[in-house]
């Protein structure tokens, strides 16, 4: 009898286990979120921001990130480099090409834990018609009723054709662009 009870108990635990592995769905709170990009201009940092973007994280359990997915949509046309002339210039075909590619996307279904509260989302970034594999590291900080994802990565603008023709050379506008994000999330359910 005891053995049967123990077996039943184990079975019920196993039956429950997949539910623990299935994490929660998370939605972005735009008010507390920020997506910055920092280019370099004659070796001086030239910061900009995408004012509109959205992040959703599905089935994410901080303890078991495998099986989760991360999707980020960026309204490229919301870029602001806080200079009227620069903002006008980056709309053009040589730079972001607002008319041709108004949106950028990042999708990952490969999330893994790399430290106590550190994670890595390996996925694909589609930007200006180019698709490139990109690793997005982030720190996860739970907060009452939600969590924050924060991270930073470096992209090569040339891989996405940002800065064409004479702008492709990296001596005036650097090749590397730092991307920094802080995303405030709350549980979707």
């Amino acid at each position, binding site marked *: 009898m005891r053995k049967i009870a123990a077996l039943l108990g184990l079975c019920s635990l196993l039956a429950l286990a997949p539910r623990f592995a299935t994490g929660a769905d998370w939605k972005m709170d735009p008010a507390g979120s920020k997506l910055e990009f920092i280019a370099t*201009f*004659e*070796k*001086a*940092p*030239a*910061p900009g921001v995408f004012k509109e973007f959205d992040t959703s994280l599905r089935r994410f359990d901080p303890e078991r990130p495998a099986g989760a997915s991360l999707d980020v949509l960026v309204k490229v046309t919301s870029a602001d480099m*806080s*200079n*009227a*002339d620069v903002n006008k*210039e980056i709309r053009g075909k040589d730079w972001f090409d607002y008319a041709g590619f108004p949106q950028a996307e990042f999708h990952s279904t490969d999330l893994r834990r790399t430290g106590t509260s550190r994670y890595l989302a390996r996925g694909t970034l589609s930007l200006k018609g180019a698709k490139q594999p990109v690793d997005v590291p982030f720190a996860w900080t739970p907060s009452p009723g939600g969590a924050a994802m924060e991270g930073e990565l470096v992209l090569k603008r040339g891989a996405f054709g940002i800065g064409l023709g*004479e*702008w492709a*050379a990296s*001596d*005036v*506008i650097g090749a590397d662009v730092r991307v920094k994000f802080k995303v405030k999330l709350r549980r979707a359910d």
Partner: protein
Amino acid sequence: MLRNDSDSWGAAAKLFHWLMAGLIFAQIPLGIMAVSWRLSPTKIELFFWHKSTGMLILALLALRLLWRLANPTPALPADMPAWERAGARLSHFLLYVLMIALPVTGWIVNSASNIPFRIFFLIPLPAIVAPDKAAADFFALVHRGLFVVLALVLVAHIGAALRHHFVKRNTVLIRMLPWRTP
């Protein structure tokens, strides 16, 4: 002699004079080319060197003024009429004012335009005014206006030096030449 005496300029004053003369004569074509070039990496490079040189001139000027205050100023020729003395004093005063006002208005334009800038790639230049498109346009106009004044004062300065040497045949020009003392 490194220091000035009452008759002639010392080596330091001559170095300041000719170094800054060289920088100012480089600034003029750099600035004119920078504003007229079409938007391209070359235009940005021209602005970068123009702005870096301008900040170097401003820094050198601060040292030069200190050096001038700490040294005697060689006397003007005794037979110079009063109007020439007044003209010399006014034009030298204007040159100093312009060597401050041109870099400072350029700095204001750069700050108001919110353009990130590191002097010679090294020293980040802090903003002295808040980003403001109208202010940037206004001070760019002031900067150009001051350049016109500088061009006129330089013509007077060089013309007067040549007149001292070739017409009045005194030592005013010679005593500023780097390789000789009167």
